[in-house]
């Protein structure tokens, strides 16, 4: 992206968003590893923040988002409260799902965030259905749906079924393949035949854009175009964003299966935060990335401290939110 060809205020706010996402996840990892306060698995998106800031940042508040197990960044970018999220990661009262979902099921329906998902690819048909409901509402409803999934998800059947569905019903949905090279410990390319996610989506009739997933500004511009098109009735679109997973698969994974230095090289030369900061550098010390990182770290450390001081949920909530009909705690046990 050519420097200068962007709105500086927007770009700065994107940078701040990315920095806050990273700080949130760094604190979450500390909470897991150092403090043993996060007991379930968390999947950091460190190094992938441009997708959240660029694409989710292009959504309206009332648009609908579906994400994956690696969804903290998307959720924050959609506008969720970091304290409610951190409480959720720690399984506490006031967590955005009441402590019942945790990291892999984080959701905030009040801002159209309809959930992360613990099952790879499962969010694709669900997202298509959300868009289907919008279409059923008629032309007055101009919301769109964004569905984000990983490179590994394109090898599961729901990918085909969901994209086909979006195509035949001409739905207002943007599918985003956030390609971070790996599916857990496997290099996705080794288990993926053909020319990859974009080629598959094109064969299913979707409009496809291939993008540098670490270029936040370009992603933002592309997403703005695509979402405008969706609102104008373009039919479903597909964005393949190539990024890189700087962390292990989970916060506990040392990722020793990667070629030596692969991650370091990416951190040094292709980190989305540093790239955006460099692009914005006006030569006079603005933006001051260190200062931004410091502020965000302080904010999120505070969030973690507050979350850690929050009590666990009331025990009886183990039996609420199950169903209206039929007592979940029926005495048959």
């Amino acid at each position, binding site marked *: 992206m050519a420097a200068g060809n962007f709105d500086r205020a927007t770009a700065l706010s994107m940078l701040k968003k990315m920095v806050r996402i990273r700080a949130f996840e760094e604190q979450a990892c500390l909470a897991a590893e150092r403090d043993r306060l996060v007991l379930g698995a968390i999947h950091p998106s460190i190094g992938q923040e441009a997708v959240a800031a660029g694409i989710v940042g292009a959504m309206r508040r009332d648009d*609908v988002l*579906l994400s994956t197990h690696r969804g903290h960044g998307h959720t924050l970018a959609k506008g969720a409260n970091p304290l409610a999220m951190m409480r959720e990661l720690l399984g506490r009262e006031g*967590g*955005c*799902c*009441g*402590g*019942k*979902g945790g990291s892999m*099921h984080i*959701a*905030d*329906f009040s801002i159209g965030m*309809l*959930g992360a*998902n*613990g*099952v790879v690819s*499962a969010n*694709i*048909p*669900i*997202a*298509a*259905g*959300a*868009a*289907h*409901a*919008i279409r*059923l509402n008629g032309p007055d409803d101009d919301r769109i749906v964004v569905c984000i999934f990983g490179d590994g998800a394109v090898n599961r*059947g*729901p990918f085909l*079924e*969901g994209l*086909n*569905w979006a195509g*035949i*019903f001409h739905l207002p949905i943007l599918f985003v393949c956030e390609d971070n090279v790996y599916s857990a410990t496997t290099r996705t390319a080794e288990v993926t035949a053909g020319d990859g996610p974009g080629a598959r989506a094109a064969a299913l009739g979707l409009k496809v854009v291939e993008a540098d997933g670490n270029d936040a500004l370009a992603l933002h511009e592309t997403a703005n175009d695509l979402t405008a098109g969706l609102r104008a009735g373009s039919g479903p679109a597909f964005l393949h964003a190539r990024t890189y997973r700087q962390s292990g698969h989970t916060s506990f994974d040392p990722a020793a299966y990667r070629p030596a230095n692969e991650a370091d090289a990416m951190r040094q030369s292709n980190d989305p935060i540093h790239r955006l900061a460099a692009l914005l550098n006006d030569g006079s010390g603005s933006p001051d990335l260190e200062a931004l990182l410091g502020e965000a770290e302080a904010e999120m450390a505070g969030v973690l401290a507050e979350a850690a001081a929050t009590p666990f949920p009331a025990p009886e909530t183990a039996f*609420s*939110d*199950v*169903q*209206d*009909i*039929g*007592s*979940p705690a*029926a005495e*048959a046990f």
Partner: protein
Amino acid sequence: MESLTYIEAGRRAVAEAMRADKRVWCVGEDLGRGGVFGQYRGLREEFGADRIADAPISEACIMGAAFGAAMMGTRPVVEMRFSDFALCAVDELVNQIAKARFMFGGQSRAPMVIRQPIGMWRSSAAQHSQSLESWYTHIPGLVVACPATPQDAYSLMQTAITCDDPVVFMEHKNHWQTEGPVDTGRSVSLGEAEILRTGSDVTLVSWSGTVHTALDAARHLAEDFEIEPEIINLRTLWPWDKDTVFASVEKTGRLLVAHESVAVGGFGAEIAASVAERIGHVLKGPVRRLGAPRSLIAYAPNLEDQVRVSADWIVEAARDLVKGIR
């Protein structure tokens, strides 16, 4: 009171619900031409292609997309064609639909009716004949309805569509043309059994197609053996009407549960175990289950008959219970 077929009763309940609430829509394969059994006949003409939607052959996506649309405030009726094909959509039903409300801390609802026709239907063989209702009773978050009569088909469908929980709605394929009286003013709640015949000698619990077999057996027992069974049509398996079943067993002192599905791991075990656990002291003899042997359903008609709970089996089991034979 009108006399309707089971299929027409369900069709009418769906049509009325669609007239009353425009959030209700149906989705599945071939619905535009009335659906594979004709359950949707005429509805495309009345409601259009958006609300009687034709889906590609993609059960996982039908289930998943309907769920997404349900979380957004619509009320889908999902057609799986044969319950067997719903096995292509189990992640969607069990991991997603049943769990979302809880996992999201109550932020979502999945008001859906998931139609999964079950049961043997002459020579449909092993992949088109299964009855897996017990599976879904084991999944927190799901309601399970198994209508036996046209009245059930009508009233349970009506209740299921207005319910905010996901309801697995299992119609019996062999009974589409079964006719019976339907009082369209009668509402039935989920979890409410019906006593179809009162009796004092043995409580006979069943659901779905086996209810009709039980009624046949009851006539035979009464006429030929002076045994008066109390016949309970359970109607919904979760929740199930423990009060009605327990009250009956308290009266008769004997329990026989009969169902078409495989006996091992079937819902009959849940009922028999519950009775033995909670009111075992009122029993005059052992509880008894009848279900299919743990074999598969064959194509050849005579082999198919080997695994079908028949009126004869029920008569024999009931007589043994009353005679105190183990």
